[in-house]
């Protein structure tokens, strides 16, 4: 029965995290971008929301809800997409283990995410090279006796240097599989962060795997393996949620500015061309949200979400870049200088919309 009704719990969480994002995250967003570093205080504040921890909660507690996560990622991203993605990256790892890990894997790994300090971890899907596609993985895991040997490189790993574990998606004999690899494992090399167009606080870096021995029981799901497509669907939904929130943050910033800025005697917002663009932003942001909700709901109810997640991601990517671009245009020169966050959003929009595999709902 079709419904867009949020539960009381969802509305409360949404409002709480929304308020947290506005007061705690937005004020530090530009500094994080400038310094290409998320301060420990901010990481601690993020951790204190307990969103990551909730992903490790037992199924029966109802703590792991893709719809709830989509709502909260939107709220976080409306303040800063970088920080939303810092959360979403760890969330993706914990969710994958919680949803698809063996009992032993859950038992060993989930407690790491119940401590008092921010715990970074990531799902590694993207690879270096200019024609990467999720269906053309070069990283390979080969059987060597009872173990696997992992070879290949992964790119754009958030907070790579701080991660305790990586979940590495690699091609195998048949379908791709996911392998849990501690950062300290022999043969794992975390590259220098080269600096990136946007999302600079995440210090996105390559991680390469040189004949890394992975014990068989560190294959996600152990004997059963895992559903890698579900990880990708979840990531696309997560990015869609973040793009939705970021876009909303942009529009919220544009409305007062265009109403105040007077050009040739009239506020910018009263020029039809500007007003229509703002209206379109709002219309599209809403549509992005419903598409994200639908994909998250499919994930939550155990349905196959591949189509919905792909469409939500593709649509949100296109719209968010366009929204950020039009925001720059509305601000003119002020949209091009670092005094306003507009240029950062433009860089973040273009960056976010190219990422695969690293967010989770």
């Amino acid at each position, binding site marked *: *029965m*079709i*419904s*867009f*009704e*949020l*539960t009381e719990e969802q509305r409360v969480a949404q409002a709480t995290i929304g308020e947290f994002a506005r007061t705690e995250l937005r004020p530090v967003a530009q500094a994080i971008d400038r310094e290409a570093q998320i301060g420990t205080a901010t990481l601690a504040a993020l951790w204190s929301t307990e969103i990551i921890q909730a992903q490790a909660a037992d199924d029966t507690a109802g703590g792991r809800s893709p*719809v709830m996560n989509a709502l909260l990622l939107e709220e976080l991203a409306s303040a800063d997409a970088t920080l939303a993605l810092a959360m979403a990256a760890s969330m993706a790892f914990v969710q994958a283990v919680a949803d698809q890990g063996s009992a032993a894997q859950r038992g060993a790994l989930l407690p790491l995410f119940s401590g008092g300090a921010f715990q970074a971890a990531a799902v590694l899907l993207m690879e270096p090279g200019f*024609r*990467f*596609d*999720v*269906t*053309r993985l070069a990283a390979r895991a080969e059987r060597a006796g009872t173990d696997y040997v992992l070879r290949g490189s992964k790119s754009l790993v958030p907070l790579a240097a701080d991660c305790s574990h990586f979940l590495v998606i690699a091609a195998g004999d048949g379908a791709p599989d996911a392998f849990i690899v501690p950062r300290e494992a022999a043969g794992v090399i975390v590259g220098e962060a080269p600096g990136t167009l946007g999302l600079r606080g995440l210090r996105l870096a390559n991680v390469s795997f040189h004949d890394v021995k992975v014990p068989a029981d560190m294959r996600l799901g152990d004997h059963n393996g895992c559903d890698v*497509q579900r990880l*990708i669907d979840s990531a696309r939904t997560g990015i869609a949620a973040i793009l939705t929130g970021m876009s909303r943050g942009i529009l919220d910033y544009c*409305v007062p500015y*265009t*109403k105040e800025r007077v050009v040739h005697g009239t506020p910018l*917002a*009263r020029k*039809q061309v500007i*007003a*229509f663009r*703002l*209206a*379109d932003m*709002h*219309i*599209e942001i*809403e*549509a*992005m949200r*419903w*598409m994200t*909700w*639908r994909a998250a*709901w*499919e994930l939550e*109810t155990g349905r196959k979400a*591949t*189509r*919905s997640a*792909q*469409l*939500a991601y*593709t*649509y949100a990517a*296109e719209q968010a870049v366009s929204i950020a671009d039009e925001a720059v245009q509305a601000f003119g020169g002020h949209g091009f200088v670092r005094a306003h966050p507009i240029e950062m959003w433009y860089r973040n929009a273009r960056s976010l919309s190219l990422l*695969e595999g690293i967010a989770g709902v």
Partner: protein
Amino acid sequence: MVDFSLTEADEKILELARQEGQIGHRHARYYDKHEDELAPAIFPEVKDKPSPHDLMKELAGQTSAPAIIEVLVHLEESYGDVRLRRARTGLGRMIVNYAGTPEQVARFGHKELSIALTEPGAGSDPSAIRASAVRDEKTGEWVLNGEKIYCSGFGGAAGALVLVRGPARDGIRPFMAFVVEKGAPGLKLLGQVKKMGIRSWDTEDFVLQDCRVPEFNRIDADFKKTMIVFNGTRPMVAAMGLGVARALLDFTRARLAEDGGVLRYEPGTPARSAIEDRLLRLEALYDAALLSVLRCKWLEERDGRTNGATKVEASMAKTLGGKAARRISQACLEILGPQALSEEFLAEKWFRDARIFDIFEGAGEINRLIVARWLLGYSAKELN
């Protein structure tokens, strides 16, 4: 709780609508070619069968919210092209029943009445209406003059509720509404409008030339309140546009499938063909618009249908629906290539049909103004 599933009852109703749509497709070309011929009030194929609307009533309580299942049925009916049962959606009749006196309701309420607003010089701007009403003090009759165009359903209707300007009061000529029945002296029928598409959609023009109607026919309808019906109809019309768009999307996918082309949702852009990539993006646009329509209808159920609560959401749904119909119809023809230009297939017809949905029931520009005014807190005077 957020929920995107259809109930069993929803599925049953929509399945019936889809089956009927297959029949509609068989008649589509005929009525496209015979635009002066009104389709029968009910087609023989379904004469003794329950309609999806009947089934909706029967299964009430087991479906998604009434406004939601209703809009989905309209989408399927539009997908089906020619309607197998003439819609009794005459807005004129709705307004008479809502604003008329008991006597007027008794006399006109059961008749099919269109609403006649548009004039050659007044489309999206009703304030430009020039048709006039003058009272003949001797007879007590009203004398109407003017030209009304694009009047939906007028061919099959008993008449229309006609919006005109009355005599000046304090320098302002107020809107007045009269029931004009066919056969009234001075009502000249101009027949079906020759349109690019939706030719089975009954649309007529007429002229009022000293057309005389009794005082009894004057309906005391508040124009502003009348406009509130658009809050419900805009998402409905958006859904109809999506019906045509999906007919084209399905046709395009089926033709590609014949050639072994399958649309996969797993890969990213780098692994797609140009055509797969476009089709995928068109589907995304379709879904974006459909979800906006459903959200609007869900809100309508929650917050009220006739109080204007969903004015902005209705405009949002219509904006996206109109845009989707335009883009999808243009792009599907391009994907299909030159073969699609031929009348051997319905694709070219749907291309023509689809274009109306960003025009009637509020063009995208009108709807964007409504959204922008709300978003920016501007009056109609401040932003136009």
